[in-house]
């Protein structure tokens, strides 16, 4: 292994990790927003949404859909990120 390739791999790893951290913090902010910010303003956000008060609907269904989207999106993006930076598993 030459020193150049070595540094190349190190750099790929660093970029992969940096992208991973960025993705993680964006998704975490969405998680925080839909959970705690909406719940904090639950009284103010109680306009009718297909029959439910909006904040009630978010806590009972909306947030859950967003959580699913966060988890699924993360799994897909990380697969791509692994392939892009050459750290994906073989199988």
């Amino acid at each position: 292994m030459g020193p150049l390739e070595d540094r190349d791999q190190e750099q790929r790893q660093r970029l992969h990790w940096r992208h991973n951290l960025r993705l993680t913090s964006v998704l975490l902010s969405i998680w925080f927003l839909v959970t705690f910010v909406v719940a904090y303003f639950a009284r103010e956000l109680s306009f009718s949404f297909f029959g439910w008060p909006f904040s009630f609907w978010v806590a009972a269904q909306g947030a859950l859909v967003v959580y699913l989207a966060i988890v699924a999106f993360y799994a897909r993006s990380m697969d791509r990120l692994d392939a892009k930076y050459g750290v994906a598993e073989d199988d």
Partner: protein
Amino acid sequence: MAAVNPPPGSAKASAKQQTSAAFKEDLNKVYGWYTGGFLSFVLVLALAEQMGLSRDAIGIVFLLATVALYAGIGIISRTSDATEYYVAGRRVPAIYNGMATGADWMSAASFLGLAGTLYLTGYGGLAFIMGWTGGYCLVALFLAPYLRKFGQYTIPDFLGARYEGNLARGVGVVIAILCSFVYVVAQIYGVGLITTRLSGLAFEIGIFVGLGGILVCSFLGGMRAVTWTQVAQYIVLIVAYMIPVVWLSVKQTGVPIPQLVYGAQLEKVSAIELALIVDPKEQEVIAIFRQQADELTARLADVPAALAAERAATHGRLASLRAANAPLAEVQAAERALATMPRDQASARAIWAAALATTEARARPLAGMPPHAQAYAGDPQGDAEARKAFVDSRRNFLALVFCLMVGTAALPHILMRYYTTPSVKQARQSVTWSLLFIVLLYFTAPALAVLVKYEVFSVLVGTSFDQLPAWVGAWSKVDPGLLSVTDINNDGILQLGEMRIGSDIIVLATPEIAGLPYVISGMVAAGGLAAALSTADGLLLTIANALSHDLYYKMIDPNAPTARRVMISKMLLLVAALAAAYVASLKVADILFLVSAAFSLAAAGLFPALVLGFFWKRATKWGAVLGMVAGLSVTLYYMATTQPWMRGLFGVTGPVADYTWFEILPISAGVFGVPVGFVVIIVVSLLTPAPRQGVQELVEQLRYPQLKPPA
């Protein structure tokens, strides 16, 4: 280092891919047949019911058939191989691991208690819905892929490797066992409750019958057997939960998708609530309760005098009844009243204080339930008291959501499941599947609560007592704690305030409310049993593995042969199960508190050390050890000083208000422990020398699914 998989050759990789695809296809076939078989079993029983099979017989058939089924899967999957025993051979496909996690996750509390809690508390109960699903975001983003890459057997394994040695591992073992044991006691309690209901056996015997089912599985086949039974249990529990709700929804709205249409029912419920609050008959009932509460308050102000007066009055009544030659029944009733009078001042005070609390709770509009759709108590625009009630209620809601979420991402029996997938990629996908299967039930529970509430408001309230549906009488006979109706104001009509309803009944009674045959009730109980058994299985395995793998193999005898380790794990499983069953049979504490305590303890004890272990190379051994201890201690201290049962246990006296911080309830004690844990780990780590090179390299390895050696 076992953490890093050797890079397989490409031929080997494609062969592995083929076998795992074939394995998944086999699984699809097996579980397809299984689901069909389960549905036909229910149909056959339904026919048998039409032909006159008794209710008790249906209950027993359901109990025995399902427990035998799980035991059968356990026997087929028996193993003594360490990788099979501890992590199911690491070949569980993402979707099946998702189902198994779903069953592992959804406990008796989710299945039976959740809809009831939502019925009783409205928006406030949604903290559980959000908390128990949103936690999976933390699992996915912070833990699952890295743990899978680490690829060992238990959670303390990671702590030991990352934080250099047995001290961190040992603290991890203690916390893992503490929270799993607390949680498993609650599950076994649920198992006992359901077997009793299904079969009419005594509670203690019910516990041990259910325990037999748990043990056959995990005892013979460890994680492998538990995984495949949990998949089977998930199918039973989700079918059992859905059918009655769909039916009830068709009955009320004509649409078979309750999750989509219950908004309309919620609007109707809110409209009826407004009418009930101003209803004069309801106010009459409340006034009667108010008066009773005032009497109790007066008695509590001077217990000795009140006790003497009451004793004299009862004696007097008995004497005058005897003198008047009253009917024997009346005399006996008066004698009974005398015999059950509080014996001394202390017990009188306790009994009256408890009575005062229940009476005051009932002396409020809507039988003490908040308006279903209203977020938080109090009023932000009201007077000082209403504003304070609003702020406190909102703060506690947010704190509870936080504790449940972080606790979800730290409970070892859930995290352990992500060791069982074939790859990091599948571990990530498997979180999505887990959450999907869990969300199916959590989408439905709030709908069920609203539909049942509408049924109660529109069918029961305002009906005369002699025309109430049959299920009301049947359930209040089973257990008045679950449901009781009394004509408080003697008008012959049921008011909402005259009805007491326990949270567990909502799910159990739904089939009857929806007008379905008894066989569906049996199926629902079997579903509750599946939920409790599967969770108990996963928890017991966690406890046994922490003891046998971490304590015995890693800390006491590192040369122990594999067969002996698995043997010891099986023995310890038995011991842990019996101990948990024994504690459950004592019916010690408030079960809901036990469950939520497990979440707070896991959150404060494990979450900071796990997350910083992956994300911060600088975190050191002493930082982690002290952080875990500090987080756990703060949480335990807060519970011990503010929770009534714990206060009794630790002999804490003095007003609770002196001990509460920011008006947070003990159920959310983890909200203090988690930040303390993080701060202590960070500060101590910065004060101690950085971990050695090898550990930092390990952390680096864990961050990438596979590092190929440069060509």
